[in-house]
Structures are given as C-alpha cells and as structure tokens.
C-alpha cells in the first residue's frame, strides 16, 4: 500500500463523486429496483403493482420456455467458448513455433475483435443464406441435407455461435500468445533434452503452465457469451426459429420490453445477476492464481 501523502478533508470526496454518482444512479439504484420489481406483479394496464412474493420466480421454475432459454444459453455459451478457446490456442501455439513473422500473424488475426457481433452476425447471415449463401452451396456437394437456418434450429444456433466466436477469437489469441511467450525457453529445452517430443512437451509443460490464462479466458468467454451476445441474437435470429436461439438475456428483454411482463423480466434479471456474480468471483480467483504462478 502506498503511503497516502496528500491531506485534504474534502478533495478526495469530490474526486470520487462523478464515478460514484454514475454508479449509484445507473447501477445500484436500477439493480435494487430489479430486485424489488421481481417481487411484484404489474396490473394489465400497468397502473398498479401488487406484492406477490416469490411468485414470479416460482412461475419461471415451471415454465418450459424458461428452461429452454437456459439450455440454449448453455449451448450457446459452451459453443462460443469451446470454439473460441480451441481455435485461439491452436493459432497461438502455431504462431509461437520458432518461426518468423509472429507479429504479422498477430495483426492478421486480431482485427475481427473490432467488429460488433451484430455486424458479424449480418455477414454470417448472408453466408448461411438458404438460397444465396456460400456455405449451404458448398455443403450441397457433400450432403443433400437442407442447411436452412430458418427451418432448423440447430443451424441457426451454429450461425450465431460461429459469428460470435469469430469476433472474439483475436482476443483469445492475444492472451494465449502472451501466455506462451512467457514460458521460459530453458524449461522446454530441458524437456527436449530429456527426450520429450513436441506433443509430450505441450501436454506436460506448456498446457499446465498456461492453465491460469486458459481459466481466465474460459470465464471471460462465458461472461461475454452470457451477456455480450444479446446483439447478435437480436439482429440475426430474433430468438428464432421457434425459440431455438432464445438465450436468457434475450428473454429478459423480450418479456420486459416487448411483452411488458415486468415482474417476470425482473425475476429473470435477478437470476442472471446471480450468474454474473458467480462468474466474476471466479474471474477474480484468476488474479490470485496469477500471483502464485
């Protein structure tokens, strides 16, 4: 801890005031309101509210649509994370081979991070287009299966997963690269002197040493796909076809903003809040781990 060196009874409070004002007005107060609203039901005309206790929650727990949105969220987040981490590690491991041009390759894979997921979604929407898209066209040479995302939920899900992972892969690569470059060369040389092949070295040395970064990226990718991926769903599939890509965040928006079912929407917000608190707590475990590492 630094020795605090300035003495002034008022100035520090003035300095933190802007940040705290924004935090209280736009973060704490709305979060508190969500908690409160989750215990109320709004009358059909929206003019009165009734205290209903935990009814909004108990209704959700028997709502098959809600379970479907949970399942969709896990499929989506799992897909984005697995694809993003797998591809990211693969590219980073290749780029840190003893070859030239590392920084050129990094530039060549980093830029998709600048593309907003909804914009990426629109590009993939065309690539997956049932009549004009290039992907169904290529696939038609391999199989007669109809890759129409408007009719098949899992194709729609694959579409939004791939588009989202595409925008995030550069981020994963940047972190894996930083991690791989931090592994001391002497350790790897020692292992190869002992006769460990390249696969063995990766499995027994590189991967364990990378595990704090992998863990961190796992949490960040999950957080990102739980919460950051609203746009791609809204812009591309609107939760369809038939609810196949309706993830939890989209349902909160749909039930609250379009369905005007404020109580249920608030209850769903509270459940998501618990998810994000858990994931953030895990993310900060990473900071501790990095210290020991």
């Amino acid at each position, binding site marked *: 801890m630094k*020795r605090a060196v300035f003495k002034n009874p008022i100035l520090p409070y003035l300095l933190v005031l802007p940040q705290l004002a924004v935090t209280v007005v736009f973060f704490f107060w709305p979060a508190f309101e969500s908690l409160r609203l989750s215990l109320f039901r709004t009358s059909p005309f929206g003019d009165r509210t009734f205290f209903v206790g935990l009814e909004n929650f108990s209704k959700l727990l028997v709502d098959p649509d809600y379970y479907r949105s949970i399942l969709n969220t896990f499929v989506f987040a799992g897909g984005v994370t697995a694809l993003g981490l797998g591809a990211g590690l693969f590219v980073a491991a290749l780029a840190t081979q003893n070859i030239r041009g590392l920084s050129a390759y990094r530039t060549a894979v980093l830029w998709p991070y600048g593309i907003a997921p909804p914009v990426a979604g629109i590009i993939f929407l065309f690539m997956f287009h049932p009549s004009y898209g*290039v992907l169904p066209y290529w696939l038609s040479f391999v199989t007669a299966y109809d890759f129409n995302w408007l009719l098949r939920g899992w194709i729609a899900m694959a579409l939004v997963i791939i588009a989202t992972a595409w925008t995030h892969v550069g981020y994963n690569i940047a972190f894996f690269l930083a991690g791989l470059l931090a592994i001391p060369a002497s350790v790897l040389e020692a292992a190869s002197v002992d006769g460990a092949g390249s696969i063995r070295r990766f499995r027994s040395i590189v991967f364990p040493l990378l595990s704090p970064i992998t863990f961190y990226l796992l949490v960040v990718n999950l957080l990102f796909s739980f919460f950051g991926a609203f746009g791609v769903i809204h812009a591309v599939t609107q939760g369809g076809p038939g609810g196949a890509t309706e993830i939890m965040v989209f349902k909160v928006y749909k039930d609250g903003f379009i369905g005007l079912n404020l109580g249920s929407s608030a209850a769903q917000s509270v459940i998501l809040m618990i998810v994000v608190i858990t994931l953030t707590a895990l993310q900060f475990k990473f900071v501790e781990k990095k210290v020991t590492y």
Partner: protein
Amino acid sequence: MLPVAAERPRKPIPCGALVVHALLLLCVAVIAFPLYYALVISTQTVQEVIARPPVLVPSGHALENYAEAWSRAKMPRLLWNSAIVAVASATGKIVISMLSAFAIVYFNFRGRAVVFWMIFVTLMLPVEVRIMSTYEVIGDLGWLNSYAGLTVPLMASATATFLFRQFYMTIPDELCEAAQLDGVGPLRFLFSFLLPLSWANIAALFVVLFIFGWNQYLWPLMITNSEAMRVVVIGLQDLIPRTGTHVPEWNVMMAAAMMALLPPVAVILVMQRWFVKGLVESEK
C-alpha cells in the same frame, strides 16, 4: 520467440517451418474469409450476388452500392452518432476513472474501502441484468433519445479505475514527496506529474474503450427510438433483406456493414500496439 513444439529445437528443419507457415496462412485465410466475402459482395450487382455458383471475386459496382447504402441508411447521421458515443464514453470513462483512482491511491480518507468496493461491484451489474429499471431511470431523467442518455451511464468503469490505480501504485513515493517539498498541491500533482506519465495507459485504454463504445448495442437499442439518435450498429439492420419479402440487395447491405465495421477495425490496425497493451493490462 520460443521453440514450443519444433521438431528438434537445436536443429530446425526448414520443411517443419514451412508446414507451420502453411497452417498459419490457412488459419488467417479462414478468419479473413467472411470479411473478404462481405467486401466482394459489396462490389457486385444483385444478379451477381444471387448467382450460382457464388461469384467469389470482386466486381465493378462498388461505387453505386456504397452510395446507395450511404443515402438509404442515412449513414452520415448514424456514423456521427456512433462516433460521439464511442469518443464521449471512452473519454468520460478515462477522466472519471483517473480522478477516482487518484483519490483512492493518494488520499487516506474515511470510506475509501467502501468506495473501492462500490466501484468493484459495478463489474457484476452489466446492463443486461438491469435492463428495465435502468430504462426507467433514463426515462425519469428525461434522457431518452439524447447523447447524455447514450453516454453517461456507460462512464462508470471498474476496469479503467483499477488500471489507473495499478499504475499509480507503481510510481515511486519519492516523486510525490519531492513535489510536496516544492509546495505542489494535489491537483497540480495530478495534472503536471501524473498525467504526463499516464499517456501510454490513456492511449491503450482509449482504443479498447472506443471499440467498446462503438459496438454498444442493447443500451442504444433501448433508450433511442428516433431515427436521428440511432447508432450505426442498430441502424444497419433496416437494410437486411429478410427472406422472401425484399429484393435480395445483399450488395447494399454488405456495403453498409463495411462502413459500420471499418472505423473500429481501422483503429485496431492503426493503433495495434496500444490496443494489445490496453486489452492485456485492463484485465489485471
């Protein structure tokens, strides 16, 4: 660079390196393909767009498609709004984070720990989990369809505050002590001593936050409904030719998508060094 998995580190085999380069180029091609394809489509006529087999090389109609997208989507207004949101939210975040980090590190005031934890907790409250009630707050303030509503709520950033805090902690105490001996007050110390040392961090943070602001979606979607206040990521969607009901003008759509994605991607490419620094450091 490290010989992570080279065949024999002390005797590199050139053909191994060639294989690695080939694989990497393949990866780069796969990652670049969607953007390349969107670019190609944005230069074609509708006939070329819907042709089978798909035409994978550029055609000569870029100018008319881009002009059409520019006027049909009312691009100048959309891009202007996005630029304001990105620049204002990034600048605001940096300013208020610098101030509060300065207070937390250089003052010993009552409630410092509480302030620190309040800032930390904002990490756990993304807009997605407080959608409806934040919307109501903005409505009560009369900030719907305004730049204030689009930018001010984005300005609290725990990660930016932590980054500045981390950075201030690395500055030796002697600097502050020497300044005090010369009779320098806290604000003068912040602006004349800390600020000049912080430019690298500010630049790095600005790049990351600019992209974050430009790509905001849910927030502007909720609190703006007038055409004049739309940001480009949202306004773009009016051009999507939904199947069956529209002329498949994907060429115009892709031209508009190019305009929406070019500014943030250009910022990453031009300021790559800052961008990587900002990404990695803001997560510490």
